[in-house]
């Protein structure tokens, strides 16, 4: 599992970085989306992989950390997902406004 996930993170990150370095605004937005998947999974993986150990207690229980997946990276990633959406929205609007203003979809607002 670890190897597969690591490979997945690597491919997502590589595709993301490649797109982020491209000159077209839409490539950038797709790249950022892929990169956020990669980073979210990376942070999540820092809590190690556990199957069937969702961090949900029984009522009244004092949890044993060894019995559950690490909840902390999950909490971090959860907000990151929502903020990622906000970032995509903001970038999308800037992208559209820039396309309308400059007449090109180059990230610098003009073709070289």
């Amino acid at each position, binding site marked *: 599992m670890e190897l597969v*996930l690591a490979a997945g993170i*690597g491919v997502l990150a590589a595709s993301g970085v490649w797109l982020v370095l491209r000159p077209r605004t839409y490539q950038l937005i797709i790249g950022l989306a892929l990169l956020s998947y990669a980073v979210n999974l990376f942070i999540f993986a820092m809590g190690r992989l*556990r199957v069937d150990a969702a961090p949900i207690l029984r009522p009244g229980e004092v949890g044993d950390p060894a019995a559950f997946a690490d909840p902390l990276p999950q*909490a971090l990633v959860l907000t990151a997902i929502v903020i990622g959406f906000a970032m995509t929205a903001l970038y999308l609007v800037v992208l559209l406004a820039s396309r309308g203003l400059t007449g090109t979809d180059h990230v610098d607002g003009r073709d070289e």
Partner: protein
Amino acid sequence: MPTSTHLLLLVLVLPFGGSLAAAFLPTHARTAAALMAGLVGLAGTIAVVLLYPHAAEGALRLKVEWLPSLGLTFSLRLDGLSWLFAGLVYGIGMLVALYARYYMSEEDPVPRFFSFLLAFMGAMAGVVLSGNLIQIVFFWELTSLFSFLLIGYWHQNAAARDGARMALTVTGTGGLCLFVGVVLLGHIVGSYDLDVVLTSGALIAAHPLYGPALALILLGAFTKSAQVPFHFWLPNAMTAPTPVSAYLHSATMVKAGVFLLMRLWPALAGTDVWFYAVVPVGLATLVFGAFAAIFQQDLKGLLAYSTISHLGLITLLLGLGSPLAAVAAIFHTINHATFKASLFMAAGIIDHETGTRDLRRLSGLYPFMPVTARLAMVAAAAMAGVPLLNGFLSKEMFFAETAENHTGSLLDDSLPYFATIAGVFSVAYSLRFILGAFFGPPPKDLPRTPHEPPHWMRFPIEVLVLICIVVGVVPSWTVGPVLADAARAVVGPSLPYYSLAVWHGFTLALAMSIVAVVGGIFLYVLLRDYLDTGMEGPPLLRRLRGQRIFEKVLVTVSWRWARALERWFGSRRLQPQLRVLVAVTLLAGALPFLLHGAAAPGPQAGTPLDPAFAAVWAVGIVCSIAAAYTAKFHRLAALVLIGIAGLVTCVTFVWLSAPDLAVTQLLVEIVTTVLLLLGLRWLPQRQEPVYGEGTPLKVRLRRAADFVLALLVGGGMATLSYLVMTRPLPDSVSRFFVERAYTEGGGTNIVNVILVDFRAFDTQGEIAVLCIVALTVFALLRRFRPAAETVERPRQQKLQNAYDAAAPERQVGDTMADYMFVPGLIMHWMFPVVVVLAVYLFMRGHDLPGGGFAAGVTLSIAFVMQYIAAGTRWVEDHLRVLPLRWMGLGLLTALATGAGAWAFGAPFLTSHHQYVYLPLVGKVPAATALLFDLGVFALVVGATVLILIALAHQSLRRARVREEAAREESAAPAPLPPVAADLQTVGEA
């Protein structure tokens, strides 16, 4: 005694309060502002006088803990030295305020002037009264700032702006040096407290950092007191209104530099390094200033260079390191303050009443202003060191000190000769000031007819000159005790023997004084013809203009170098910047491996591989690569592909025990897809490649480099995550959360409890960010101008409408309405179901996967589905979603829940929880965290809906624009196509 410490605090606070009050006075309230400044000065003086017994006894201290862990304390300390300086600051400040009332023109915004003056007064008082090194530097920088504002007060005048900027640059740079020096000093001593520092002289001198600390502190002091080679800012600062000059030159600003030297004298002085660092600078300043002063044509310029010279004298005395020299330095500081303030005021009166300060135009003013002339003569005589005046006494002490043997070096031996030469110069420039302005032929072509000033304008000079005479005649009865107290604060309880008397018999010092006076008269007579030629500046040194060097350096550093750096390293293009960013990140990630060698996979046994998981990721990997490949020309395809990659991520979360993440990821995925689809409507299709057939080599190389970079980053992240995942999880703060989620947070879903309870403050920040982004999107879209190609109705709609128009039995718009009929109906019916799902997700969030974020996104999906199904207009006729209200309420609910904890005496966002039994529903959690989560929920709904709807509304706006255009074109109204289905076409790109 609490009352005394309160009084001390009042002394410091009063001028700042006055400054604030003066700032709010009407622009022409000249008298009121002057009165306020004068009263503040008077009150300060009285308070300082009342505090005298404490200063005489030792030191009065006031300490308030500020950041005790960093050793930072707000601390005031009044001893003999600070008492003396505080007295000068307030006493002369009061006189300057009175003088300025008459000097300042009614046309200027005078309250602003007094506001700056009072703040400056307070800053200077802060420097002398602080009991903590850092605090001294703080007020020190404030004096630099407020002197900048004062010097540049007539900001319409370019010279004033330049002078102000130069003063700020020089003294501000010095202030930074001082700050570093003081931090070093605090590091050496282990405390910033002045009481500790002043008793650690031996420790400091023996420390290896003594040299650097001393050099930096001296740089601060020398720039402030205009010592050579930093002197040039002071003559340029005379573009300030004359009251300011009088104040800067006598009691404040330049005196801050010598005050610092005196203050730290017990801690820093007495070493050879000190002697050789301070004495040459003081000596050079003394001689150069006096020499340059003779040749100035501007009255204020003459006085400015004389100030430089006198400050050099004080610095030189302090540099000698002997206690007696320190006493002489303090004494001369007092005397210089009195005669220099009165001389500047006299120069200001001359300028005010004649319209010029140029010695080439002025002459023979004595008959027109006899009283002012006599006052100025006495003050100038004190400056020259004529007996029976205060300047004589301290100058004689100075002569006597230079004649003493200190280190026996050549420098030491030459001091008395240089001192006498400087004395000769000072007599010469004093003569020039008096003879040039008041005697000689009657003045011709003055801008104004000269006359005596109003009496109250002259009054401050009278007071100061009276002090000059009284101190000069009966020194031991007047200044004696004060000087002794101040000296004890510097040199310690046992004072060296000195006698404050006019007559000491025929001593070497007296001989030097006589040589200086006689020589000065001779020199003046000799130079008369040369001076009458009207050449500006001193001979020989005329070309050596510190100002020009300063400007050259400034231009080089702040313009040429900055430009060059920008040329070399700057880029306005995004791609190179991102490339650097990615490369640096990659390097930072690889650095530990480069330094410590490669790491092997850890010992932890992996989770057994499920082939299905591998298959899912095979799809994910293919989609990710495909998205990267298609994003340029096939936008919709790329969107679909990243959607699949997102689903794979979501499945991974489910598989690996993160149900909350899976739920949120899935919902956000839906919203993101809708969002991008809406955006695609306004992004015209890319037609053909930029570089038709032959892609240039440069571009191909760049792509290859990017490709390698991307591979390296991907490979790096994969390796890194694999290395981490194969190592056991160390014990982290997670233990805290897992153990206490239920017992203290009252919820079984640990992730949710972390979000809304343990780390609620973070979540509060997150929702604020979301709120800000939504508002920004909303604002950006209000003035949105889409690309010209997209303004028209989309091609698909045109085709459909054309088809409808061609078929006789159809209405235009039928096709659109028809093909969305079934999905639209389903979405209508889904609405209540989805709303219930949102409520369900929210309610169970504290105990089971769900929560405010997920529920919020779900509800917004419910709303957005209605828009898709029925169109914007229909939805807004039937259902009013007010996203801004949702957001505001959400943010306020979250904040109010957090603040509610205060009512129970707990810190912000402390939660309380219990379970409540509801009939039918059963046991439900009723933690205050749930209320907080409600805020999160409402905000997420509002923000998401606002973003999506603002974007969706663009179609409506465009449609309206098109309709209006059409209406204008043809008088006959065209059949209005229904825009309800406008949203359905957003996928067309």
